[in-house]
């Protein structure tokens, strides 16, 4: 038990030392960059400034979004918000796609149904080699059966 505790203390000390070394390194790098920045020309400084502003605005936006998730406590709401934003932007396109898809489905199904049943429609019965009376006459059925017997 005591042994485990001492191992944990060693790990913590090691992590703290690493963190301090990283901070020191970052501080040195920052100072070095600042020193060299004095010698940069105006165009490069302007580009760097714009890039920084862009990076900061993106970071702010992503943090605000995450804060929204934390406040509402619902990832689903976050997806829903994203969908709504996209939907608002492309509302007309979504509507058009939905209407076209429904129209296409409706008329394809209707057409397919008509074509499928066409050979069984009454019109083709009337145009058959035998008149409809032959198909409807119960006596003819009975007579055929009696002839077979």
């Amino acid at each position: 038990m005591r042994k485990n505790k001492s191992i944990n203390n060693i790990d913590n000390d090691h992590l703290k030392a690493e963190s301090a070394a990283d901070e020191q390194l970052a501080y040195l790098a920052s100072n070095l960059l600042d020193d060299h920045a004095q010698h940069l020309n105006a165009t490069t400084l302007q580009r760097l400034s714009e890039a920084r502003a862009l990076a900061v605005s993106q970071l702010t936006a992503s943090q605000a979004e995450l804060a929204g998730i934390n406040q509402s406590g619902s990832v689903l709401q976050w997806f829903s918000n994203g969908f709504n934003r996209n939907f608002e932007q492309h509302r007309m396109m979504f509507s058009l796609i939905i209407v076209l898809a429904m129209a296409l489905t409706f008329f394809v199904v209707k057409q397919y149904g008509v074509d499928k049943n066409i050979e069984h429609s009454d019109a083709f019965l009337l145009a058959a080699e035998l008149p409809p009376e032959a198909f409807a006459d119960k006596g003819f059925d009975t007579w055929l059966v009696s002839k077979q017997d």
Partner: protein
Amino acid sequence: MASFQTRLNFALVFSLYLLMSSIALADDSTLSWSQLNNEQRQVLNPLASEWDTLRPWQREKMLDIARDYAKMSPAKQDLVQKRLTNWSRMTPYERENARKNHHQFQSLSPEKKVELRRKWMEYQQLPESARGKLRSESPDTYKDADLN
């Protein structure tokens, strides 16, 4: 929460869908003779005098015939015109029996169809009394629920 415009948009889309449905499923079965178009009247001409007395489901079936008529050869169109009056005067029972037998007839080989045609002509040579007797001997195979 969807905005008012989004909801309005959904309502518009849904209304369009309902409109399309109603157009596609428009009920022609209540059309009177004068409301039929020229093509329908030409095909269904043998039924002109009795069209307005037909029941909605009978009109619907006849309009289906008019629709398919255009897809037939002239010889078959001629047969349809000649047989249409008798067909319209058959009972629902007879028509249903005819549909069932025609369905079976379609699956026969050409030789069997020729043989059946020959037998039909032979059957027609029988006296009406003999044919009536044969009809009365035939068992009823349909119930009211099967008829349209």
